[in-house]
């Protein structure tokens, strides 16, 4: 009967019920939308990090570090690359030779990382070819051509066909200098990386380093991120003398960005929930005051406080349960729509997002379990908010309530 009363009370004051249901729906929508905004940004960052920078997995020699001096190499690199490329989970593989050194022009110099690459493999792994904004992608017949980032080019006033001298140490620790011509200028989402990385053919770099058929880094792009742990385990087992790392280990800052976003979105979801709570408290409190007399009669007739409390709580709970599906539908619809169309932040943000390895358009998205989390949070908030009006109802005195 308490349920019956609660249910019929909902339909009695339709305005009020609509207000609460809409509040719940809006609260749910707002919470989900903000979570989706951040989740979308995080996913985009992750996607870019994987597809344009790191790839899913990288293999290095166990004591690999980016040193100015000789970097430990993978000896059977060619063989291993072919073997990895044959795996069905693998989309693309790129073997890279790396040297840390200095780039000098007539007027200036900068510390850089020289990446020796096989052009086609690199294009497939990190989309290097599509990042090209000027010049050509290793089409020159000459072997001593290089690609540099737009930011570095600007900083050192380099243009296509400019001559640069690269200085680094070979495998015997002798200082080697070699002249290269700029064949192309590229720009990626991550200008910090653009400023530091230059690309040359792997054979040229290996010759200068005194290496043969070797590489320092093998980057592996898989068909999907879910395959990462499996392939990592397989490769690690096959190559116990090498270090196999996934993108999370290689780029902890991507992890930092993802978790900062998680944290920030939680803070805002909490604020949204607070706003929802106040809305519900206000409206239910009004409902209780409006029904002072009726509650007084129920108490006079012998309805005890526990049952009264349960009645008001049940009423709120039902309102919330009706509001939730609408909110979910709204949230899902808006997120779905925007996940295709995207929110373009260029007007607000200008170049920024690109400078930090984000794209300028956010595609919000939310996995199912997060929807569930938000629904649970909203329901808990709503029920807790209903406590205050319910307690207020308990404090009514029947005599005064009936008289009023």
């Amino acid at each position, binding site marked *: 009967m308490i349920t019956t009363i609660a249910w019929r009370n909902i339909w009695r004051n339709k305005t009020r019920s609509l207000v609460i249901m809409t509040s719940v729906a809006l609260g749910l929508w707002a919470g989900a939308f903000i979570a989706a905004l951040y989740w979308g940004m995080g996913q985009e960052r992750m996607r870019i990090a994987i597809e344009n920078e790191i790839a899913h997995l990288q293999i290095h020699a166990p004591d690999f570090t980016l040193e100015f001096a000789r970097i430990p190499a993978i000896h059977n690199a060619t063989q291993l690359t072919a073997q990895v490329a044959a795996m069905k989970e693998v989309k693309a593989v790129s073997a890279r030779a790396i040297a840390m050194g200095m780039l000098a022009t007539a007027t200036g110099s900068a510390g850089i990382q020289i990446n020796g690459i096989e052009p086609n493999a690199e294009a497939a792994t990190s989309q290097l070819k599509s990042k090209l904004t000027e010049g050509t992608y290793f089409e020159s017949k000459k072997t001593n051509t290089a690609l540099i980032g737009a930011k570095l080019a600007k*900083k050192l006033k380099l243009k296509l066909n400019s001559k640069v001298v690269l200085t680094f*140490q070979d495998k015997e620790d002798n*200082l080697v200098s070699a002249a290269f011509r700029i064949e192309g200028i590229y720009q990626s989402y991550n200008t910090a990386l653009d400023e530091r990385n230059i690309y040359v053919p792997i054979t040229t770099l290996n010759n200068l380093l005194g290496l043969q058929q070797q590489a320092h880094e093998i980057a592996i792009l898989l068909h999907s991120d879910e395959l990462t742990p499996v392939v990592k385990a397989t490769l690690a087992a096959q190559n116990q003398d090498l270090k196999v790392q996934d993108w999370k280990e290689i780029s902890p800052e991507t*992890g930092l960005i993802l978790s900062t976003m998680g944290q920030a979105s939680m803070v805002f979801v909490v604020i949204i929930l607070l*706003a929802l709570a106040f*809305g519900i408290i206000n409206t239910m409190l009004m409902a209780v005051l409006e029904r002072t007399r009726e509650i007084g009669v129920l108490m006079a007739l012998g309805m005890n406080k526990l049952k009264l409390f349960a009645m008001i709580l049940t009423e709120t709970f039902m309102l919330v349960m009706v509001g939730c599906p609408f909110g979910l539908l709204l949230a899902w619809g808006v997120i779905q729509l925007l996940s295709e169309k995207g929110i373009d932040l260029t007007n607000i943000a200008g170049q920024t997002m690109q400078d930090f390895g984000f794209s300028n358009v956010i595609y919000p998205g939310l996995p199912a379990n997060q929807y569930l989390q938000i629904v649970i949070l909203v329901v808990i908030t709503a029920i807790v908010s209903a406590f205050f009006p319910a307690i207020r109802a308990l404090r009514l005195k029947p005599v005064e309530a009936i008289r009023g």
Partner: protein
Amino acid sequence: MLFKLAWRNLWRNRSRTLITMASVFFAVLLAVFTMSLQKGVWDNLTKNVVSFYSGYLQIHLNGYWNEQILDNSFAFTDSLNRAVLQQPHVTAATPRLEAFALASGNEITKGSMVAGIDPEKEHIVTALKNKLISGSYLQPNDRAVLIAEGLAKKLQLTTADTVVLLGQGYHGSTAAGKYSIKGLVKFASPEINEAMVYLPLPEAQNLYGATGMLTSLVISLDAPQNLNAVVTNLKKAIGSRYEVMPWQEMMPEIQQLIKTKEGSAQIILAVLYLLVSFGIFGTLLMMTAERRYEFGMLMAIGMKRRRLAGVVFIESMLVTITGCIAAVLAGIPLVNYLHQHPIRFTGQMAKVYEDFGFEPVLPAMFSMEVIVTQAAIVSFMALLLALYPLLHVYRLNETEAMKR
């Protein structure tokens, strides 16, 4: 008379008045809270980032920033120093001579950034003394260096060892010097931690053959919000021979990161406004529904709609203004508290922040401007929403309304 009626109406149903007031109160408080937290977080980020190295503001020879070479240095004259220090809000001017050099230990060589500094003044900008992890701090006339911990590790050097610096000096001369390491400094940013070598300014000028020259002058301010004023005044005072660069121009990516975040913050604020205005609307809607009979009766006894609307609007105004003032009064200590005792996060997030050299806190920004702006925006929304009851009064049919 209308005012008196409105005033009495508010007192007659105190619970209802309080509830409506509460909805405005919480709306303002939440908006103030959100905005102060947002602004505080970015202010804090800026403070952290500029104290890494750049400071809030630098003066260079015109053109230096685009081409950071020693040939673009300038003479540090007394008249320049005086002209700078005379500006209001300027508290200190810290000179630097910065250049690239190859740093070598016994076997290993690495690219490094040499900074000639005034040890005491440098401490004001970057708190360099606090970063000392072994050895002792530089004295102005030392012939010794402080080197970054990461760089020292790479060079396999430690305190009291000798480091050789080799680079290109002023006007193409060769710069070469041998220095004993007086101490190690540790930086949170790996990029800086693996690059910096600090020399006392006179010794650096000596090494690079640039006597009396500087590449940059870092200006300290009494408060960050005076930045723009100082930039304008300095530009006027020292003329076009120099470039005056605020941090936003030196680190456009950080500036734009903050803009982006403010962009997403605006989306969040918009969502919050939507939710709180719905909360206020809900209360007004219920208030209106509850008072149908009363309105009908007043009209039946001859009160003109215009006057009744006037009474209702005065009521809304009183409620909104009181709620707003209460929220501002409650917001000031709350925000101030969160400003002085920032929300501190713990666990994995905190560790990541510390690794990046940030204090793991979410400080709120205490600014009356933010508080007053938010209060104004929300009250404006509330007053706009208060038009709904007016509309209701104008459309009310008194005989219909009198039916219970």
